[in-house]
Structure formats: C-alpha cells, structure tokens
C-alpha cells in the first residue's frame, strides 16, 4: 500500500519534512587474524559531507585481548563502545577476569539486536585473542548478525580494500593462506601462518591505496596489534612509533602504531 502522505508530498515537489537521526561519517576499518596475533586498523578521518576532522579514532582497546573497531555513524559508534565497555567492567567485577573474546562477540550480538528497530548505524569489527591463543576477527552488521573471519574490511573503502586483501593476504605472506586465484581451487584454503611484519605492511599499503582513490579515507592510520600470551614481539620492537598500551600483566599484550596518510 503506497504511503499517501509521502506520495502527495512527492507530487507537490516539497522536500520531506522528516529529518533522519543518522549520518554517515565515512572512513574505513580493517582487521586481520594471525595464528597467534591480530591486527586491527582504522583511518582517523571523520567526514560530514565535504567537511572533515583529521583525528577521530574509531579503533578502541576493550581489554588486553580484545579490540573493537566501529565504522559508520560515529556518534552511534562511540556510544556503542561505551556501552560495551560498561558491560565488560560489570563482568570484571562479577567474575574477577576479563570476558573472553567469543563471549564479547555474543554479548555484542545481543546488544545490537536489542536495538533491532532503531539500530546503532555502525559496522563493527571485533578482533583479539581467543582463549586458545589464536587470533580472531568477528564481523557484525548493524543489527547483530556476526561471523568469525580471518580478514575483513568495513566502511567507505570496503569495496576497494577487501578484494585486494583477498589476493594479497596470501601472496605477500607466503607460505600461507588462500592464494586467491593463484592456486588450484581444490587446494586447502584454511588460513595458517602469516608473519606479523607482512601483515602490518599489507595493512599500511591497503590504507595508502584506499586513501589514494577514496575521498573519505585519509589523514591518519591507527593500528592496534594484539599478541597472544607468551609470543615474542615479532619485530614490533623495531617498528618506529610502536607503543605498548597493555593494562594488565596477564599475558596478552596490546600495541598501537600510528602512521600518517594523505590529507587531501
């Protein structure tokens, strides 16, 4: 049944009176899981039409083993991160430990679906270290559908970066993962070993490429690296600007790396 009110308004050529409560603030986020680490990255540009802010982070450390990247409507994103953090704090008080990653993922589904009919306008990528020490990436849509991935991009430049990573994930970091379109289709496609140094340069390259072609991507790149319990620094100590942001001494360690991107 057509909506008669909007039809008559469309016919009279008047703009809709209704103001949407959402905006779209551009930017892109990305996460890659390794066997004993994970990398989460996001650019720091926030756009509002043609104007922009140069440093508005959208990747957040939740615990020492979980990092959350939020992309879409940044007000909703920030509020959602606050709500997740509040839940995690209550969990810590109740259980005297940090919530495991897969539990955070399920919690986020519940929280997102609770707003099924007025959603947080956000694509979430949760990444970190599972209880078995493996790196993991969980991707969510705005109403809570989620799946575990090895490599995922979301946001404005998703279509630019995801197919590039499908291809490079593997190629850069041989001997490794899927080798998309570079191997027979029958070979095993279960990801195995990716060295951290290769993943980091791949992530940086991807953002440089995206900022080259997309107006909503640029200014700065903020990367979080989470290392599993007892794993070595794998070259992180030599990386310029790598900064440790670990809060506890439980085992998992979190680092940040910042790089600049095109500002035009």
């Amino acid at each position, binding site marked *: 049944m057509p909506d008669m009110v909007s039809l008559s308004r469309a016919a009279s050529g008047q703009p809709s009176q209704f103001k949407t409560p959402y905006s779209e603030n551009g930017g892109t986020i990305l996460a890659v899981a390794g066997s004993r680490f994970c990398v989460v990255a996001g650019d720091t540009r926030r756009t509002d039409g043609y104007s922009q802010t140069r440093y508005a982070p959208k990747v957040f450390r939740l615990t020492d083993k979980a990092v959350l990247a939020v992309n879409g409507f940044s007000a909703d994103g920030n509020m959602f991160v606050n709500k997740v953090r509040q839940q995690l704090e209550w969990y810590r008080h109740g259980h005297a430990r940090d919530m495991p990653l897969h539990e955070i993922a399920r919690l986020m589904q519940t929280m997102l679906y609770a707003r099924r009919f007025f959603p947080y306008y956000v694509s979430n990528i949760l990444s970190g270290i599972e209880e078995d020490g493996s790196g993991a990436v969980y991707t969510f849509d705005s109403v809570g559908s989620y799946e575990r991935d090895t490599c995922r991009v979301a946001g404005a430049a998703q*279509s*630019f970066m995801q*197919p590039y990573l*499908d*291809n490079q994930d593997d190629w850069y970091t041989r001997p490794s993962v899927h080798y*998309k*379109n*570079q191997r027979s289709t029958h070979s095993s496609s279960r990801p195995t070993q990716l060295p951290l140094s290769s993943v980091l340069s791949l992530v940086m390259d991807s953002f440089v490429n995206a900022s080259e072609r997309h107006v909503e991507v640029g200014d700065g790149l903020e990367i979080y690296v989470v290392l599993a319990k007892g794993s070595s620094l794998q070259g992180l100590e030599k990386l310029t600007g790598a900064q440790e942001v670990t809060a506890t001494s439980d085992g998992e360690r979190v680092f940040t790396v910042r790089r600049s991107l095109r500002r035009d």
Partner: protein
Amino acid sequence: MSIMEYNGGSVIAMVGKDCVAIASDLRLGNQALGVSSNFQKIFPVTDRIYLGLPGLATDVTTLRELFRYRVNMYTVKEERDIEPETFAHLVSSTLYERRFGPFFIEPVIAGMSKTPAGGLKPFIAATDLIGCLNFAKDFVVAGTASSKLFGVAEGLWEPDLEPEDLFETISQTMLNAVDRDAYSGWGVMVHVITKDKVISRTLKGRMD
C-alpha cells in the same frame, strides 16, 4: 533497480611498457539470474585498438554495430586506420549525441597510437555514459565491479610492466575484483596489445 546493473559486467584497461591490456568478465545476467557465461564485451576496432563496452547488454550490441559502421566509414573516407585518440573522440561524440536519452554504456578504449617519430605508444581512455573522456596514464575501470577494480589495480599496478607481467597483473586484478561482485564474473577475457601482436586469453573463474 539500476539500469547500469541490470545485466552486470565489468571492464578494465591498463598501460604497460610498449603495450596495453584490456580485460572483461564474460557474464550476462538478468539481475541476479545468470543467463550466459560467454557474453563478450570487448571488440576489436582496428588491429591495434580494442573497445570494451560494459553496461546494458542491448546497448553493448547496438554500440558495437554503430562503432563498426562509423569506423568503416572513416576508414573508407580517409583510406587509413583510425588512431586511438581519434577513435576516443568518436566514441565521446557518438555518446554525447544522446545526451538526454543516453546509451547505458561506459566505454573503455585500449590501443597503441602512432608517435610523430613513427613508433607506437600505449593509449587508454574511458568515458561515462554521455561521453566525458578520461585519459588516464595508468589504468581505467568501468562496470558493476569498478570500485573493486580500482582497489585491486591501485595495489597491483606499477609502471612499465612487460607484456607477460602486465597480463598477470590485469588478470589478477580482474579475477579478484569480480569474485567480490555478484553481477560480474563467470570467466574473464584478456587482450594484451603489443607493437607487433595481440595476445588474447580466456581465463576460467569462479562460477558462483
């Protein structure tokens, strides 16, 4: 429903060292339903110009026939082959003739053009559906997977690739881009144009 996405399909062209490459997918669909896995979107114009026509399939055929006619008339009148630059402007003006009722096609042109010294140099160009020309120095993309092609090409392409390396680059770009596009894929056709020959290859792709 966008008319540019009704049949699906994508084309890309790249510049190399003394060569150019152009590639397309082979799918023809009716929205989500695949109809043909052998629908050519790239056509030879002269011995060293190829034209890619992604967009609405009826206009792919109509424009192919129209350009064949106009290039034949040019060849007869001028008693010589058309140059890529000239052909690009022919494409542009042909599309602009229909400014207010356009053909739903975004052409991509790849060819080798004559230099004043008598040599050949690579040439690529693309236009929008009303004929606005884009002469790029690296690569041009068009079709339903264009944003994906941009992303992969931006990462893989580098200047002065030899024909075989250019073939590998354009093939990987195309295959990985169309694998993330539901409306493109079902096989890929690649042409690499060098000074003295054209290498044409059909690639198998994912069928999902």
